[in-house]
């Protein structure tokens, strides 16, 4: 199966990327003057966030393709990337609040980006709630595709609205504006690493979803 090959390739790629990423973050990147070492959570937080955004983009595209082609495979792809999106956005929220604690000694900051992730998290948990509530496979796929599209289109609007609403973050977090060149390179590297991790997770889960599908079909053959 071609997905197996992709999974193995990505696996070996990650064997190289992840240690390198750790080395860069903890050894190469300079310590931030104001926040000290804890600022290094920033690399992790932002790269997971990009992974989550990639996953939700995946849901958006697969949902459109499902509505276009009506092939169940796209629905499986959408549902898989939604699952990974929820996993990653949960981690973004956790790392976000762990980072906020030492820096602003508050567990939750109403920062526009964090707020957007929280709202996205709600929508895609709702995505799975909806899926579990509908029996017919085709109708379930069709309705969740609608949520997959609306959820994604909501991101810019919520970002825009919350950015106006309030932002207590210092300038530093204006998407890496305050980072010096070395930090920016390390940031870029860890974002790419996490993008590869997200793709690896996707194919890994996608393979499992396809086998689950085959099990369903075989179980039915057993009954006839």
């Amino acid at each position, binding site marked *: 199966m071609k997905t197996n090959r992709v999974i193995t390739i990505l696996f070996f790629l990650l064997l190289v990327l992840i240690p390198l990423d750790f080395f860069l973050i903890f050894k190469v990147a300079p310590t931030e003057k104001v926040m000290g070492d804890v600022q290094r959570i920033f690399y992790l937080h932002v790269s997971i966030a990009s992974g989550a955004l990639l996953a939700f983009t995946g849901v958006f595209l697969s949902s459109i393709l499902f509505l276009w082609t009506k092939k169940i495979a796209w629905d499986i792809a959408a549902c898989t990337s939604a699952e990974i999106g929820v996993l990653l956005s949960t981690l973004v929220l956790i790392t976000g609040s762990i980072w906020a604690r030492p820096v602003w000694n508050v567990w939750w900051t109403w920062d526009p980006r964090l707020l957007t992730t929280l709202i996205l998290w709600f929508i895609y948990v709702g995505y799975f709630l909806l899926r579990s509530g509908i029996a017919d496979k085709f109708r379930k796929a069709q309705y969740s595709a609608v949520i997959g599209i609306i959820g994604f289109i909501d991101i810019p609007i919520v970002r825009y609205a919350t950015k106006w609403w309030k932002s207590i973050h210092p300038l530093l977090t204006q998407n890496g504006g305050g980072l010096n060149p070395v930090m920016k390179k390390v940031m870029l590297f860890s974002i790419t690493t996490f993008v590869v991790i997200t793709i690896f*997770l996707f194919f890994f889960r996608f393979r499992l979803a396809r086998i689950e599908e085959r099990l369903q079909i075989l*179980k039915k053959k057993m009954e006839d």
Partner: protein
Amino acid sequence: MENWVYLFGAYTIAWLGVSFYLYINTKKQKGIEKRLADIEASLKDKK
């Protein structure tokens, strides 16, 4: 230095989360593959 705990905590939680997700998937995968094998076997002797 107290901040170090937050740094360490964030990284462990993140990587723990990802690897735990992978662990569940592999376990589910093995379970399903076994059941697939049983069903295919019983389908064969049914024919």
